[in-house]
């Protein structure tokens, strides 16, 4: 038996086809207007999960970038402070060489000693360098000035490391401890800068042959040792800055590639979607036309 085709079948078939095309058109339209091919997890559960993961990665990369920027600011400030400290120590060394020269009288040496005292205070001033309101040479006691300018020479900070996480599980120490360079003055007898500077001023004022001997001998040697230590520390800070710069570049690259991946997963291919949209619209129109014609036809039109 051939299948009887009834009006209700035709009508339902035309309607169902129109609705199916309509649904596809709506989806395409949604993709075009949002620019996303993934608007709900059920559009493609696997891709949606991948998108979640990529978004989380992207967020973490951006956060690492912010951390690296912040750490770079910190090391730049440290670098600047160390550079100024080096300048001061070099000036002190010039004065020391000058003061150790026998040609100077005691008056001149007193003047030099006064300048050394001023330089010592400057050293403490520079060691109190801040970044974003935080003392950068004070260890983790970042809200306490490490040295009291015009006061005692004791180091008020601590020796703890300030570390920043610049990648998954990658922690980088970014701080320099002020007492490793300046020490805690004569009381601590640690041969650090403050101790040596105070000794120099004392020896300049003392004026005895033994003082001259010390100025020319041990003081100069100790100051030079501290200069070496400063240079070494600056090299370490420079290396840290370098590492941060490399990390920043790498994170920028990572961000770009993650964004590209996310876009591949989430974003609609506009050209392809537009072509799809146009062809769907054409087939919608064709279906409407065909449907309208078929639904209208009847034997009644031809019987007279």
């Amino acid at each position, binding site marked *: 038996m051939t299948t009887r085709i009834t009006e209700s079948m035709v009508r339902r078939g035309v309607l169902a086809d129109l609705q199916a095309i309509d649904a596809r058109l709506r989806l395409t339209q949604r993709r075009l207007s949002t620019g996303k091919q993934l608007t709900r*997890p059920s559009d493609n559960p696997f891709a949606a999960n991948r998108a979640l993961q990529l978004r989380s990665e992207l967020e973490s990369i951006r956060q690492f970038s912010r951390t690296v920027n912040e750490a770079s600011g910190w090391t730049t400030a440290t670098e600047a402070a160390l550079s100024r400290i080096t300048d001061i120590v070099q000036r002190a060394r010039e004065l020391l060489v000058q003061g150790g020269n026998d040609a100077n009288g005691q008056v001149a040496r007193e003047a030099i000693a006064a300048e050394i005292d001023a330089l010592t205070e400057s050293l403490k001033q520079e060691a109190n360098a801040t970044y974003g309101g935080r003392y950068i040479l004070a260890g983790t006691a970042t809200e306490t000035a490490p040295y009291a300018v015009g006061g005692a020479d004791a180091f008020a900070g601590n020796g703890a490391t300030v570390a920043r996480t610049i990648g998954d599980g990658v922690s980088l120490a970014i701080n320099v401890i002020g007492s490793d360079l300046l020490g805690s003055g004569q009381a601590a007898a640690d041969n650090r800068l403050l101790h040596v500077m105070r000794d120099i001023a004392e020896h300049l004022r003392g004026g005895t042959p033994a003082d001259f001997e010390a100025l020319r001998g041990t003081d100069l040697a100790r100051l030079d040792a501290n200069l070496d230590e400063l240079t070494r520390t600056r090299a370490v800070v420079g290396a840290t800055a370098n590492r941060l710069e490399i990390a920043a570049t790498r994170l920028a690259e990572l961000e770009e590639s993650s964004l590209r991946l996310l876009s591949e997963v989430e974003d609609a291919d506009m050209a392809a979607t537009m072509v799809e949209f146009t062809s769907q619209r054409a087939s919608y129109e064709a279906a409407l036309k065909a449907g309208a014609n078929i639904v209208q036809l009847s034997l009644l039109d031809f019987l007279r």
Partner: protein
Amino acid sequence: MGVSTFSGLQTALKGLLAHQRALDVTSHNIANQNTVGYSRQEAVLGASRATRIDAGALQNGAGAHLGSGVDVLAYRRIRDRFLDLQYRAQAMRLGGLAAKARGLEGVEVALAEPGENGIAHRLGVFWSAWSDVANSPENSATRQVLVEQAGALAIAIATLDAQMATAAQHAAAEHEAIVGPGGEVALIADEIARLNETIRSSVAARIEPNDLYDRRDYLLDQLSALGQVSVTDLGDGTIEVAFGDAALPLVEGTTVNWPQALAEPGGKLGALLELSQPGGLIASYRAELEAFAQSLADAVNALHTSGCGPAFFTYTAGSVASTLAVAVTADEVVTSATPDPGANEIATAIAALRGGAPDTAYASLVGRIGSDVGQVRREEANAEALVAAVQDRRDATSGVSLDEEVSNLVRFQRGYQASARAMSTIDEALDVLINRTGRVGL
């Protein structure tokens, strides 16, 4: 027995009457072409009982049957019961899948993933806020931002949980509305019982109530979208309808047994139960969300309290997702076990939780809901196609085809006209016999 002179008139009359009935039926079909559940009918015509002429009717001495016209044998409803069974099975499947798809879509929309408004994004921002605190632990502004972001995350989790609970409640309410007194099931069952009664009295009087059968079958179609239906013919025209896994038949002849308890009724009711009941689909999503919220709160709290600080998040055990809240103010946020303002090891450790167990748990929940919705949508589309196919086959058998009915109109009209012509031909013959015979030469 001889043949009456007027038997031809009677034969023609029968032709006229039968064609008139056939036209009536055709007209009924056309009138009902858009009636839902209507099956086309036809007048089954058959030759009338012949007039028996005894031996000697024919030249060779044999008797004969002289045809005496046409009768309507029956008004037949054209319907395939097997297709009804197939249709109801598919309608039940479609009803269930459609209800499930609508329910799950509500949950999926509540997720708002992937996007800026989802929990995944909030979680990422929360970890970033911890990282910012680790970068400047002395700064109270970053801690304030952290507390605010944490609050937003907790609210997002509680909102999602509440929306899922609402979706489950809606499903339960819909289920209740359908099975409750005055609900769809009760209405259908009552009408079937009443139809059973009318049909039984008709059948007892040997009348086939075609249109009542149609209505009853249509009601059974409706009922099958709600749950599993099986029909037993009781022989006197009435039927017994078993519904879902109810202990007693929903309709037994003219008695209705409702309400009854249903555990796995199938169809729309089954899907609504599956969505809403404790241990159901939505409840299992909520349990996953709960586990995610718990692991998030516990992981953060464990690290936060390791610095002798207070718990970062508070929650009520057993309803973590809905009660999650930030327990600390900006000043109480602990970044380190030491009192040094620049120390950040705890904040760093918490920031390093990013991408860990809580993130994975949430992503897997999103993946699960996404694939559940995708699957139920595909199944729904499949069931829709199957229902449409069975419906087409049913329409091919029972549906009214206008072209067919119009051509039948022409056919029966011609039959009627020809019967009338036969009658007037016989009438003319009789006229000759009665009025002209024996009047030769007058």
